[in-house]
């Protein structure tokens, strides 16, 4: 079964260089762990919402706007697609993501085709 782990954090928080490096290392360890278990299907880290553009079409008109689709305290900073047995396994993996300690990780099943 495939799950998406959506990593949500407050992107306004700025880290010192040392903290940023430490955090980068934590995420690397997390990824290495997923790879070694053979559960990682995909992962991407997203750049901040200040670079986001929202697109919609209404009645044939294209609407392009600056920013994310919703203003929320936490924004999606990245995601993983993992393959595991069940929700408990997915929760277990999500709880090990470094962001779980300061943000949240949303676990969503992926449609199977």
């Amino acid at each position, binding site marked *: 079964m495939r799950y998406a782990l959506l990593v949500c954090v407050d992107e306004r928080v700025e880290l010192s260089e040392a903290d940023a490096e430490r955090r980068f290392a934590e995420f690397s360890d997390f990824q290495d762990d997923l790879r070694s278990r053979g559960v990682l299907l995909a992962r991407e880290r997203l750049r901040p919402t200040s670079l986001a553009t929202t697109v919609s079409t209404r009645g044939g008109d294209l609407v392009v706007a600056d920013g994310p689709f919703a203003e929320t305290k936490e924004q999606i900073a990245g995601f993983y697609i993992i393959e595991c047995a*069940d*929700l*408990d396994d997915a929760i277990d993996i999500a709880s090990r993501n470094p962001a779980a300690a300061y943000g949240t990780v949303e676990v969503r099943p992926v449609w199977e085709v």
Partner: protein
Amino acid sequence: MGGLAAAQAAVADAFRADWGRVVAYLIRVTGNWDLAEECAQDAFERALQRWPDDGVPSSPSAWLKTTARNRALDRLRRASVGDAKQREIVMLRASEEADDGGDSGIEDDQLRLMFTCCHPALPIEAQVALTLRTLAGLSTPEIAHAFLVPPETMAKRLTRAKHKITEARIPYRVPAAHHLGERLRAVLVVIYALFNEGYGASTGAHLIRTDLCSEAIRLGRLLAELMPDEPEALGLLSLMLLHNSRRAARIDQHGELVTLEDQNRGRWDSAAIAEATRILDRAVRRRQPGPYQLQAAIAACHAHAPHAAATDWDEITILYQRLSEIAPSPVVLLNHAVAVAMARGAAAGLALVDQLQEAGSLADYYLLPATRADLLRRMARNPEAAIAYQRALDLAPTDTERRFLLRRLQELDGPARD
């Protein structure tokens, strides 16, 4: 006709004793919650038809399991080809069972069901409802009635929960050892919520809600049997039995609330108190204290006092102190303040209550002003007590509580009680 009545009674007994077993087993072998419920229902209906003629089987639960499993196979056989795979799975899993319908694994099934119903990925209301439906066998309208929501709302809640279990694949198993502690706490929360839902009710749907208390105790017993080494499971069972032992004395003949202090202790259920005490002793011997054991110990202090004045308030103060250390909450602190007032005088208690009031975390909780009012009354500070009673009246959640507070408020004008 005697045979018919006896067979019907046997089916009713089996329903109470075995519904959860049959459903739990069928969920494991079919992986389909709706099919499991429907086929369990079918099996009990079939028992009603067959048992009067064939006699009650030697193991009703094995008969019901087998009948329900065959029914599930039948249904899958007649369903579309797409279900062929599921049918194979059912046959495979069923053949792994001892063919004499042996009970091996059944208890584990119920434990699995309990943990899945009480999975933290489900909303708490759904956890409670699903537990009542699948383990206790209450119908959806009965559950809706008990929680005072329309049946359609309850049906939707149950459907949504089962949908999530299937589609997000919430596993059907007892959690791994390193998660067992937190997951067990979630199960205890659901059972205790169920109990309190029944215990807190004193008006309206009274009878059904009394049933909720019995169901909670039944589930508590089951959990204590399944996990005999978990002191908190024993603690919760003991706590519920102790509360429940006072149920008859808690409401007077006019349906009015009677405080612990004023209850007729002769109406307490002494057999239940004795059983609860034995269970608590067993739990405490494991030397792993927890919030339910401590609350049960407090309830036991009350239960063992022959009259209100003989209550060991020093011990209760200590127990609340420990409870506030391991499970800190403003409500526990309020209860601690009451115990201090009883042990060391109203003024000492009032000082603690005032601290809580200043902290503001119980701003909308009627028992805070009600407690203040009671302490002020004991200190003969009647005008202040009246203001506090008025505040409590504004916040009280049910009519029974409002009537109680109103009586106390009116008594302030009369001669002092203490």
